[in-house]
C-alpha cells in the first residue's frame, strides 16, 4: 500500500501537535501496572487447570533409544503424558519450523524436550517428569560453529528439506549444517584495496547472552469445542496463530491467541515453545493446561542472542577515509533456527558490518550455523550488538594506528544523506555529521581528551562509538470506533512495555484535536481485531502508530463528509491501515568515560553521553525510558553478561550467576535528542526501542584502550580480560587478536 496516509508528509497538524503532544504523558495502563491489577499470562488461571512439566535431554546430541513413561503415568494426579511419538512430525518455529514440539528420534541440545506431563499440581508434574525413563545413545556433539562446517561434522538436520518455511522458498545454503548464508557485494572492492594506504584486519567475538526479561515464559491453553485458546507471553499473537495452525494442522479460524501484558521481551518472546505441546496436553487431558517456565530452563532452552565471530578488513587512504571493506560473520545458531523470523534466517541486521559509514565498495559474507548448543534467536536489535562491537572497535583501532583522533576518524567517514553505505544503497536517514557534531559539543570532547591522570588513581579513558538502526517496516491495521463522542481504538498489539497504547492515544487525540481523556485504547485477541504483525523490528511507532494515525484521519474525513462534529456524529467505525516499506534509518552515538584500576583491570563507566536522532517525540517519558533502558541493556552486555556454556550446558542459568545491571551499576547518563529531522512515523516520529543498545560495548572497549592502552577483543569486557592484557608481555600483546596489513 504505497503512499498510505500514515506516511505522507504531515501538514496542518502543527497547532494540534502542539496542543496534545505537549500534554504530560500518563501511561494508559499505568494504573493497572502500579496496583498489581495488570494481568500477565502467568496470572491467568482456569477452573480445573492442570500444570505442566517437561522432560528434557541431558545430552547435547543423542539418539532416543526408548522412553518409558509408565511410572510417570501411574503417579496419582497425573492426567496426561505425551512423548515425541504423540507429536511427531510436528515442529515449531517463526519462519523455519525445524524444532520438534517433542523430539522423537534425536535430541540436538541440552534442554531439548522429549516428553510433557500435565498434572493436578506443578509439584506432581515435576515429580512425574523425574520418573520418565529415557534411554539415550550419545552421539558426537558439534559445539563449535567452525567444526560444524567441516567435512567430518555430523549433519544435524538431515531432513531439512522437509521443514516448513513460511513465505516462499527457503534461501539455499552451501553446507548442510548452515541455517542461513548470505553475501552482499557492491562497488569495486579490488580497486579499493589496490588504492589503499593501509589495510587493517581484526577479528572479534561476542558470546551468547540471554534477553533477561524478568518474566519467565508462560502459557495457558485449552480447548473449547473445536477452538483452541492460547494465553501467552508471545509478543506477536497473529504470527503464533499462523505457526500453531501450520504445525498442529488446525485452521487459523479455530485458534484464538491472547497476549496480555508481557513482562519484558527484548526479542526473545517472539518464539513460543510450550504452547505447541500444551495443545496436545489439552486435547489428551480435556482440561486447561498451564506452564510457567522455570527461569533456569528459560536460560538453558529457549533462544538466546547469537554468539558470533566477526572478521573485518578495511582499506583506508592516508587520511583514514574508507575505500573498501570486506567482512565475514559467523553466527552460532545453535540447534534450531526456529527463533529467527526474517526471510534470510539470519539475525536481523547480520550484514551491517560497518554501519553508519560511507563504504564505496564492500564484500560481506554472513552465515548462521547449526550446532548442538542452545538455539539462538532474536535479541534487541538482532545482529547489531555483535556487528557494532566489531565495527566500532575496528574503526577505533584504525584511527589509533593512523594517529587520527577516534572522533575525527568518524567525522571523516560518517554517512550523510545520499552517501553509499554498507548496504550499497544511498543512505536515507540521519545526517551523521550532525550527530557527531552534537556529540563533540555535548560530551565536552576536547576537555575529556585532555583530562590529566593523577598518580595512583584509576586510569581515565574516553571512548566513542556510533550506531544506526532502521526505522521499522511492515504493515498493520486497527479499528477506530466513535460512540457518543468518545473514540475507542481497538488493536492487536501486545504490550511488552514500550508504551504503545499511550502512543496510539496521543496520536489519535492529536489528529482529532480532542483531549487525551476522550480516547481509549483496547487490546483484543486474534479473534477480535484485525491482523497485526506483532511487536518487533522497531515497528510499533512507525507502522502500528501509522495505522492509528490513518484511522484518526479516516474518522476526520468521515466527519467532514457528514458535516458533523465528533460529539454528535452518532456511531462510526473506520479501519486504519499503514504500510511502511522505505529504508529510513536513525543514528546515535556515545561518548563514555571509564575508570580502570590498573592493578586489577576492574572497570567502571563513570559517565555517558548519548546523542540520538529520534525525530518528532510523541511519548517523551517512554522515549527517554527506551533510550536509558537501551543504554543499560547495552552496558550489561558490555561489562558483565555472558551465557557461559560447557559442553552445551549453561553453567550460569540464573540471575544469581548471570549478572545484569542493578540500580547501583548505572552511571550518570546525559541524553541529547536530535528532533529536527522528521522520520517516517506519525508526525515525523522515528523508533527508539532498539536504537541505543548495540554500540555500548565498543564505546567501553575504546575507552578502556584510551585509559590503559590495551584492547579487549571480545564481550563482555571483564576485569579478567583487561588484567590479562595488562600483564601480557608487550611483544605477545602486539600480535594478539589482531593483524595489521
Amino acid at each position, binding site marked *: 500500500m504505497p503512499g498510505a496516509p500514515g506516511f505522507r508528509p504531515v501538514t496542518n497538524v502543527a497547532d494540534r501537535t502542539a496542543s496534545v503532544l505537549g500534554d504530560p504523558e500518563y501511561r494508559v495502563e499505568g494504573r493497572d501496572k502500579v496496583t*498489581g491489577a495488570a494481568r*500477565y499470562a502467568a496470572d491467568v488461571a482456569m477452573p480445573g487447570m492442570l500444570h505442566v512439566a517437561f522432560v528434557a535431554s541431558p545430552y547435547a546430541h543423542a539418539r532416543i533409544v526408548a522412553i518409558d513413561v509408565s511410572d510417570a503415568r501411574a503417579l496419582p494426579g497425573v492426567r496426561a503424558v505425551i512423548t515425541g511419538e504423540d507429536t511427531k512430525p510436528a515442529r515449531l518455529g517463526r519462519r523455519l519450523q525445524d524444532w520438534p514440539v517433542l523430539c522423537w528420534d534425536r535430541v540436538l541440545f541440552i534442554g531439548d524436550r522429549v516428553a510433557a506431563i500435565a498434572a493436578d499440581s506443578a509439584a506432581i508434574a515435576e515429580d512425574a517428569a523425574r520418573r520418565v525413563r529415557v534411554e539415550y545413545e550419545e552421539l558426537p556433539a558439534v559445539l563449535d560453529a567452525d567444526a560444524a562446517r567441516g567435512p567430518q561434522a555430523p549433519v544435524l538436520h538431515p531432513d531439512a528439506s522437509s521443514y516448513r518455511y513460511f513465505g516462499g522458498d527457503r534461501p539455499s545454503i552451501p553446507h548442510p549444517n548452515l541455517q542461513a548464508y548470505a553475501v552482499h557485494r557492491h562497488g569495486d572492492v579490488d580497486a579499493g584495496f589496490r588504492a589503499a594506504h593501509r589495510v587493517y584486519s581484526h577479528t572479534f567475538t561476542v558470546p551468547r547472552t540471554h534477553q533477561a526479561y*524478568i518474566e519467565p515464559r508462560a502459557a495457558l491453553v485449552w480447548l473449547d469445542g473445536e477452538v483452541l485458546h492460547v494465553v501467552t507471553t508471545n509478543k506477536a499473537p497473529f504470527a503464533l496463530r499462523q505457526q500453531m495452525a501450520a504445525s498442529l494442522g488446525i485452521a487459523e479460524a479455530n485458534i484464538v491467541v491472547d497476549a496480555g*501484558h508481557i513482562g*519484558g521481551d527484548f526479542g526473545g518472546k517472539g518464539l513460543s515453545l510450550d504452547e505447541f505441546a500444551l495443545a496436545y496436553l489439552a486435547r489428551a487431558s480435556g482440561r486447561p493446561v498451564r506452564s510457567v517456565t522455570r*527461569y533456569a530452563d528459560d536460560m538453558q532452552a529457549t533462544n538466546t542472542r547469537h554468539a558470533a565471530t566477526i572478521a573485518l578488513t578495511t582499506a583506508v587512504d592516508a587520511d583514514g577515509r574508507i575505500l573498501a571493506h570486506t567482512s565475514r560473520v559467523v553466527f552460532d545458531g545453535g540447534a534450531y533456527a526456529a527463533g529467527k523470523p526474517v526471510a534470510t534466517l539470519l539475525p536481523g541486521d547480520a550484514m551491517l558490518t560497518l554501519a553508519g559509514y560511507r563504504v564505496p565498495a564492500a564484500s560481506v559474507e554472513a552465515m548462521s550455523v547449526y550446532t548442538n548448543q542452545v538455539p539462538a534467536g532474536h535479541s534487541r536489535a538482532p545482529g547489531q550488538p555483535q556487528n557494532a562491537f566489531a565495527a566500532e572497535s575496528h574503526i577505533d583501532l584504525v584511527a589509533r594506528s593512523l594517529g587520527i583522533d577516534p572522533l575525527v576518524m568518524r567525522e571523516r567517514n560518517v554517512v550523510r544523506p545520499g552517501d553509499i553505505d554498507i548496504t550499497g544503497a544511498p543512505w536515507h536517514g540521519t545526517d551523521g555529521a550532525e550527530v557527531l557534531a552534537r556529540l563533540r559539543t555535548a560530551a565536552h570532547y576536547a576537555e575529556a581528551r585532555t583530562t590529566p591522570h593523577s598518580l595512583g588513581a584509576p586510569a581515565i579513558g574516553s571512548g566513542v562509538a556510533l550506531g544506526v538502526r532502521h526505522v521499522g517496516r511492515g504493515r498493520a491495521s486497527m479499528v477506530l470506533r466513535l460512540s457518543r463522542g468518545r473514540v475507542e481504538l481497538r488493536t492487536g498489539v501486545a504490550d511488552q512495555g*514500550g508504551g504503545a497504547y499511550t502512543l496510539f492515544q496521543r496520536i489519535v487525540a492529536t489528529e482529532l484535536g480532542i483531549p487525551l481523556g476522550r480516547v481509549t485504547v483496547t487490546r483484543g485477541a486474534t479473534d477480535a481485531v484485525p491482523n497485526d504483525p506483532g511487536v518487533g523490528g522497531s515497528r510499533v511507532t512507525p507502522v502500528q502508530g501509522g495505522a492509528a494515525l490513518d484511522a484518526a484521519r479516516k474518522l476526520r474525513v468521515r466527519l467532514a463528509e457528514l458535516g458533523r462534529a465528533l460529539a454528535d456524529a452518532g456511531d462510526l467505525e473506520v479501519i486504519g491501515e499503514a504500510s511502511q516499506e522505505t529504508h529510513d534509518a536513525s543514528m546515535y552515538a556515545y561518548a563514555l568515560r571509564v575508570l580502570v584500576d590498573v592493578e586489577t583491570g576492574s572497570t567502571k563507566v563513570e559517565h555517558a553521553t548519548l546523542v540520538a536522532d529520534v525525530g518528532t517525540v510523541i511519548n517523551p517519558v517512554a522515549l527517554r*525510558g527506551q533510550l536509558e533502558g537501551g543504554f543499560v541493556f547495552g552496558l550489561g552486555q558490555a561489562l558483565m553478561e555472558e551465557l557461559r556454556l560447557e559442553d552445551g550446558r549453561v553453567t550460569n542459568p540464573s*540471575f544469581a550467576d548471570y549478572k545484569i545491571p542493578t*540500580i547501583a551499576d548505572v552511571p550518570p547518563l546525559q541524553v541529547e535528542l536530535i528532533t529536527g529531522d522528521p522520520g517516517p512515523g506519525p508526525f515525523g516520529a522515528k523508533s527508539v526501542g532498539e536504537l541505543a543498545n548495540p554500540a555500548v560495548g565498543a564505546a567501553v572497549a575504546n575507552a578502556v584502550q584510551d585509559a590503559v592502552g590495551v584492547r579487549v577483543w571480545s564481550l563482555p569486557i571483564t576485569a579478567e580480560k583487561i588484567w590479562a592484557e595488562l600483564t601480557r608481555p608487550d611483544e605477545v600483546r602486539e600480535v594478539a587478536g589482531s593483524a595489521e596489513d
Partner: protein
Amino acid sequence: MTTHRVAFTLNGAARAIDVPADRLLIDALRDELGATGTKLGCGIGVCGACSVLVDGELLSACLLPAIFVDGHAVTTVEGLAADGELTATQDAFIRDGGFQCGICTPGQLVAATALLVEHPRPSPDEIRTWMMGNLCRCTGYYGIERAIGRAAGMT
C-alpha cells in the same frame, strides 16, 4: 505432607488458608488467594519481583514458606493504594517512567515504599543501596530513581 492453617492479615484483611508446610508464600498468594499482583521472576530470591512486606520488613515471597506469616501482616502491591487512591510513589512511577513492561513494578513499589518509611528523604546512595535487590530490565533504573525522588518530595 502435613497441612497447616495459616491465619494472617493480607493488605489489612484477615485471611486464613490451609497449606502444606512447603507451600511458598508467593504460591499461596497467587494460587490460593488470587492475589496475582506479586510476580514470580527468578524464583531464587535474587530479582526482587516477588518483594512483599511482612510486618513492614521487605522479603522475597518466592523463598518464604507461607506458614511463616501465620499471625503476621503481609502487604503486597495490591495493598499500597488506600481506597483506590494511588500513593505518591505509585503516581510518581507512572509520571516519571518508573516502569515499562511492569513485571518488576510490584516489587519495586513495595521496596520503594519500605525505603521511604526508613528514609523519608533518601540520598542517591540510600536509594541505590536499598533498591539494588530489585532488578529491572526495561528502564535502566533512571526512571525509578526519578520516581522515588519525586515521591519523597525532592523534585
